[in-house]
């Protein structure tokens, strides 16, 4: 396979037939979710309160939007604030991780026995290309543990959409095994074997009307796709200069890989790194490292997408499952806080340079334009061109909507 030794800087180099490559990279809306699992502090990111007793030890700096300040830990984002949009008035209900992750990745509380699909599954189903060899929903997470996030990862991602819309996981200990053709097997032999297997199993599937055989064939198709794009999952094949720019940490490296996967035909890439933001102890000692890394990742990602002409079609979201308390606990930590927190977006369909909502001077309460998970998801779906009000009538279940409650998107955040 020629792609195995090619540079992945060019998608065309991955495939032996460029026409296939062009067909695969269809132009359409895409999304990168930087999942800040554990929940970052709004005070040390997008909603600083300098000089107050809740503000913590870090200061605030001006940004490219006059009158808007962010944490001093984010000097690079400060220079591109006019390209970002920030919601400072997120106010949601769950204040424990598992429930918070559920709500902020699926858009709503559970309604058993209905399992609402995660954002990536919806986007893959609505905007993805099922015939693409590149997985349409990819989760990059090098940290296999993660407490509640680990439990969540073991759960049902795609819900009623079906497992084919679940993520392909990669990163760290989730390295995808056995997707490189052994050298002892020639490309011709490999294709001949696959053709024979496909003929026999399709015949069986059709003759017997076998669901099991259909699933078996779907799995083979997926593996075949993964084999054809294996280099996309190899960090070592990313351009060294890009790797240097994004920074050395695992989260930064996989954020770069996310950009690369989106460039090369994936539709939704979610990047996480366990749940490092859950700083019940050593809040400032950890955020002094985590926030500058995020600052640089966002700066590089937005700049790269813009430079490649992809930002208008690619939505970048950076958020966790809630925020952190205005007060410090005895262990130098901030605890969970869902009443008033912040998140950021940029790109596809999102109006740049907008700051939505505000909190009181010490960050306890939202004082203007509270935004809950439903309005956030309605906005994200609308930005991506997906109808947030679509209705689903599933057998033996009540009627569901993609976003419940007939809520309105945040119009000031939407382009057009």
């Amino acid at each position, binding site marked *: 396979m020629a792609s195995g030794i090619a540079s992945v800087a060019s998608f065309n180099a991955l495939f032996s037939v460029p026409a296939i490559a062009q067909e695969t990279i269809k132009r359409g809306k895409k999304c990168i979710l930087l999942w800040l699992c554990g929940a970052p502090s709004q005070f040390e990111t997008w909603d600083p309160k300098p000089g107050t*007793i809740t503000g913590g030890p870090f200061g605030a700096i001006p940004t490219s939007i006059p009158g808007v300040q962010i944490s001093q830990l984010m000097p690079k984002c400060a220079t591109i604030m006019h390209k970002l949009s920030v919601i400072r008035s997120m106010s949601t209900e769950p204040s424990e991780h598992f429930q918070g992750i559920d709500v902020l990745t699926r858009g709503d509380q559970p309604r058993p026995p209905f399992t609402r699909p995660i954002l990536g599954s919806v986007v893959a189903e609505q905007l993805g290309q099922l015939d693409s060899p590149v997985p349409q929903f990819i989760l990059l997470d090098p*940290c296999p543990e993660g407490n509640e996030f680990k439990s969540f990862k073991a759960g049902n991602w795609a819900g009623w959409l079906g497992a084919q819309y679940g993520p392909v996981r990669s990163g760290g200990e989730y390295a995808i095994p056995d997707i490189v053709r052994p050298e002892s097997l020639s490309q011709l032999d490999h294709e001949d074997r696959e053709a024979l297997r496909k003929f026999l199993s399709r015949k069986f599937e059709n003759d017997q009307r076998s669901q099991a055989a259909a699933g078996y064939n779907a799995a083979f198709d997926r593996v075949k796709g993964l084999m054809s794009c294996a280099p996309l999952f190899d960090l070592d094949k990313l351009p060294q200069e890009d790797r240097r720019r994004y920074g*050395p940490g695992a989260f930064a490296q996989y954020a770069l890989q996310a950009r690369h996967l989106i460039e090369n035909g994936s539709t939704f890439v979610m990047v996480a790194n366990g749940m490092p933001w859950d700083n019940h102890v050593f809040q400032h000692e950890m955020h002094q490292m985590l926030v500058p890394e995020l600052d640089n990742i966002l700066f590089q990602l937005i700049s790269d997408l813009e430079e490649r002409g992809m930002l208008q079609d690619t939505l970048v979201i950076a958020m966790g499952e809630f925020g952190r308390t205005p007060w410090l606990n005895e262990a130098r930590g901030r605890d969970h806080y869902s009443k008033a927190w912040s998140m950021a977006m940029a790109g596809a369909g999102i109006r740049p340079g907008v700051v939505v909502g505000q909190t009181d001077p010490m960050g306890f309460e939202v004082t203007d334009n509270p935004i809950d998970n439903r309005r956030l998801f309605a906005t994200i779906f609308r930005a991506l061109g997906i109808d947030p009000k679509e209705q689903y009538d599933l057998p033996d279940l009540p009627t569901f909507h993609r976003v419940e409650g007939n809520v309105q998107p945040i119009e000031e955040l939407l382009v057009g």
Partner: protein
Amino acid sequence: MQRTITRIHDFKLPTAILGACLLDDHRELIAACMDGVYRVEIESKKYDRIGQHESYASSAVFVPGQQVAITAGYDGKLKWFSVKDNALQREQKVHSFWSWDMAVSKDHRWLASVTGQYLAGDYKYAPAQELEPCVKILDAADGRLIHALSHVPSVQSVVFSHNSQYVAAGNLMGQVRVWDVQSGAQVGGFESKDFTSWGIIKSHCYLGGIFAMEFTPDDAHLIVCGMGDMRDPMAGNGKQLWQRWDWKEGKLISQTNEKQSGEGLMEAIALHPSMESFLMGGRLRGGEWNAALFDLASGERIGTIKSGYRITQMLFNHQGQLIVVGGQGQPGKSNDGKFPDFGRVEIYEINS
């Protein structure tokens, strides 16, 4: 022999105290707090805020010859306050990042302040190299820079030897370097991997390190403290840990008796005036005490305190009474919109 440690006096300051020093007569202290620098009359419980840093004040020392109190802060500055009139005499930017800790030599000639921001240095989040020298040695009288010394960020604790010849600095990774103050030459050091956690659960990054140090009376050894390893670094449940090291040989001499310690970050060490025991204090996460007196020779625990709040510094006055400072967890806002006071000062008597 077990000692009884009895609280005889206590009061609160508006915000948590991160560092403190006693003034000449030991009736007053200077407290470095989250919201500024306070001068406190211990007996009367009266206090005045005499100054502020642009962030938390983190340390305070007293220089009797000049009658100044010097504070350091997370703004990277040192400030000299006259104790005659509380006036700010001088301020000096020493670091571009925080001053995590500051110490004065026992002869009051030198100041040492330590800094360093923990930034990702590799795939597994080992700390990146320092962006500025992490250890600064200054002339206490005029702030003149004597040495700028290299270390691995973040450097969280610093102490001078009793003979004022050496200065030691400990960091996030449990690495301690010891320099000769006059020459600036590194003359010793060691690395303990027992104080630093790398998150197997939740996060692949480093937390912890060495938070306080004290030389033994003969300056031959260093006692260092912090918190033992945690599988989940966000749990804060590492062992309350001290270790005694021969810093010239890089050899571990002794450490906390496991049966005598609970869980929690230890961030204060003080030698008893008798020079026969030492105190270690910090936060109680699980167990029975958050400050304890240890026999210097045997390392056995001989007395305990359960203060109910995080201890950040311990001092002894002329009467041999123990002064403990720190802070409770910051309370939520009360109905009147104000925060209840959460800085704590307590005085204890230690009886045999």
